[in-house]
């Protein structure tokens, strides 16, 4: 008795399905209207990675400044930052939500973390959504180069090379130990350091890796100490850096420490290590926050006006500006007739642009915009930072 009914229902369902099918792949949202450009970013504002979330807030300030100066060719930037807590599952959800809700998203700016970034990279690239300045130093952004992905963060391996070169040539260190996190970040630093040591005809005093979950680093530090190292390249996260220095102090182990740009916020590191961030040599991808150069001064002055209560003018906040400056430059160059293609063309025309980071050059096939870095050093009190080397590309 139900047979004919079922058949009709099945027929109706399939007609329904076919009728609806085209709308599913429908309209591509561009995120650009006559008066607005919609740009989004993810960054952890809560959870263990929250200190890096300052990047996103720095980006927000840059856009606010651009809008207050009249916007870009008659359009204001509407910024959609969201907190993903450094959890890729949340990054994907947030990005899809924004990209697929009218009016869509024109481009992504900064975006903190390798693994959140990797989770959305293919999704963005398939849709041709430009992404400028991922706030993580990963080789994944540029190998192979993607049409719409413009990387700013210099390579960790280059930083490690420059640090080793400096330790050996200028500081006269002979026994360099490598202490690195067992993740992509640590591995890249490790690899760069090994390559440079090999080039110099040296062997590392010892190579020690540390797990993300480890909280007691005494055995690690004993290995470093027993190796007789006179310098240690420390490629770990901020929490581990604190534990490392405290444990080393307890063991009366005081080599020359050297570390990556990830730990280049000397003020924060000095605070959370309880004053142990002394005589630290580190790589930096951006001008020092208190540098007396016009590019930095401009933002430092604006910071006093725009920043929320409790915000600090630090390295990460400034990085949020530096990673995204080329995006603003690209929007300016693309002109009033803004499409993703015209924007990408405009980005490729950027040569030797100097903002708060090193010089930035993109081009057809060139997607690693910044390669310049320099070394800096905190003094005996850990409060004053001096630039050790000029901006330079590591060869």
């Amino acid at each position, binding site marked *: 008795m139900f047979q004919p009914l079922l058949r009709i229902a099945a027929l109706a369902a399939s007609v329904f399905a076919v009728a609806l099918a085209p709308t599913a792949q429908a309209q591509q949202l561009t995120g650009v209207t006559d008066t607005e450009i919609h740009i989004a970013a993810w960054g952890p504002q809560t959870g263990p990675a929250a200190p890096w979330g300052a990047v996103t807030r720095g980006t927000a300030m840059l856009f606010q400044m651009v809008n207050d100066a009249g916007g870009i060719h008659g359009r204001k930037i509407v910024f959609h930052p969201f*907190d993903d807590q450094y959890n890729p599952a949340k990054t994907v959800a947030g990005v*899809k939500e924004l990209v697929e809700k009218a009016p869509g998203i024109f481009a992504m700016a900064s975006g903190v973390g390798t693994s959140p970034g990797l989770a959305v990279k293919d999704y963005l690239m398939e849709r041709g959504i430009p992404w400028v300045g991922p706030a993580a130093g990963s080789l994944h952004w540029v190998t192979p180069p993607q049409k719409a992905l413009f990387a700013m963060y210099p390579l960790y391996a280059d930083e490690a090379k420059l640090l080793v070169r400096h330790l050996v040539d200028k500081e006269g260190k002979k026994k360099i130990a490598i202490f690195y996190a067992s993740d992509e970040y640590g591995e890249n630093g490790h690899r760069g350091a090994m390559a440079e040591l090999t080039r110099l005809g040296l062997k590392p005093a010892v190579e020690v890796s540390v797990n993300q*979950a480890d909280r007691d680093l005494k055995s690690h530090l004993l290995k470093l100490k027993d190796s007789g190292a006179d310098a240690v390249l420390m490629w770990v996260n901020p929490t581990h850096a604190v534990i490392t220095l405290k444990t080393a102090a307890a063991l009366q182990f005081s080599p020359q420490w050297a570390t990556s740009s990830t730990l280049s916020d000397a003020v924060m590191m000095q605070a959370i290590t309880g004053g142990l961030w002394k005589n630290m040599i580190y790589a930096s991808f951006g001008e020092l926050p208190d540098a007396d150069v016009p590019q930095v001064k401009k933002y430092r002055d604006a910071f006093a006006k725009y920043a929320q209560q409790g915000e600090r003018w630090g390295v990460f906040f400034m990085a949020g500006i530096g990673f995204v400056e080329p995006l603003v430059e690209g929007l300016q160059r693309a002109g009033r007739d803004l499409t993703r293609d015209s924007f990408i063309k405009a980005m490729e025309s950027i040569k030797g642009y100097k903002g708060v980071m090193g010089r930035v050059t993109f081009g057809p096939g060139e997607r690693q915009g910044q390669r310049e870095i320099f070394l800096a050093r905190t003094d005996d009190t850990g409060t004053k930072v001096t630039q050790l080397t000029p901006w330079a590309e590591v060869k």
Partner: protein
Amino acid sequence: MDMKRSYYRDLRLFDTWPLGLWLVVCAALLALVPFFAGNYLMYVLGYIAINAMVALGLNVLVGYTGQISLGHAGFFAIGAYATVLLAKAGVPIPLALVAAAFIAAAFGFLLGLPALRLEGPYLAVITLGFGLTVENIFAKAEFFGGATGPSVPPFSLSLWPGFSREQNLYWLIMLCAGGTILAIRNLMRTRVGRAFVAIRDSDVAAACAGVDLTWYKTLAFAVSAAFTGVAGGLFAFHLGQVDPTTFNLMLSILFLAMVVIGGVGSILGPLLGAVTISLLNLKLKGLKLADFEQIPLAGKEIAGFISRHFMETGMANIQFIVYGGILVLIMVFEPLGLYGLWIRAKRYWRTWPL
């Protein structure tokens, strides 16, 4: 609890025909989603369905067999890695998922062996160790892609002409989730399921009644791990990325929380738990201070309190507290979990107007 008063009622796949009808309607609606919804909705539903599969699988162990596991993120990881590595080696995706189920089940069997001698907190610690070990092995070994994990091949399966990758994946996830529900519901009607329940209620009594404890306890682990493994494989494609640190202790605890919040020892319970926790996970991120000002009566005061004590540079740092608070409230007011709420609502209407 939801009592069944006859043996034959207990044997039915669906308790009543309206229930069966509703399930078909729900399944049809979910199946139609790709035709009218965007990627975002499919992503959220897929995320929920994957979590539901794990919760249902874990419930076989926790709810039905009375064992515990704090290491299900390990099986989830094994499923994800097995699927990705097999798919990269050219194995068709459905076959890779099936293989992942068997590989995870094999590890489940191994982990089930110590469960023969251990109970309660001791078992919890063993499984905890298992989860942590798996995470570390995947993160260390170069073969598994090291700290960044292996790259995930594109999802190439086509289930419906003209479907995009996301739409095909959504259907596969829903098929697997639906299959999981049916399989577990069916399993619990069989001799095996009854043996699980007998072990939960009293393993000594079960052994006396002829239940082979060695076999059934390890089998419970294996079955539970198999469903979790498939879910892990789907998750790898869903996220498009496998990162060993994703499969951490927190994830194992979340899985267990889904089962407990939802209500142990039922099908609906873990489902509700998975929906609740997944949505809390994805949706609380947008919580802003202005949202608290909407609260009637004390909105202004609450917002003021938060801005004084729980703010980090202008962003509300409150969602963790809200998250935890919701979980605590559910457990305090409904120890049977969300399933308990459902039972009470049902009983209320059945005996209405008493």
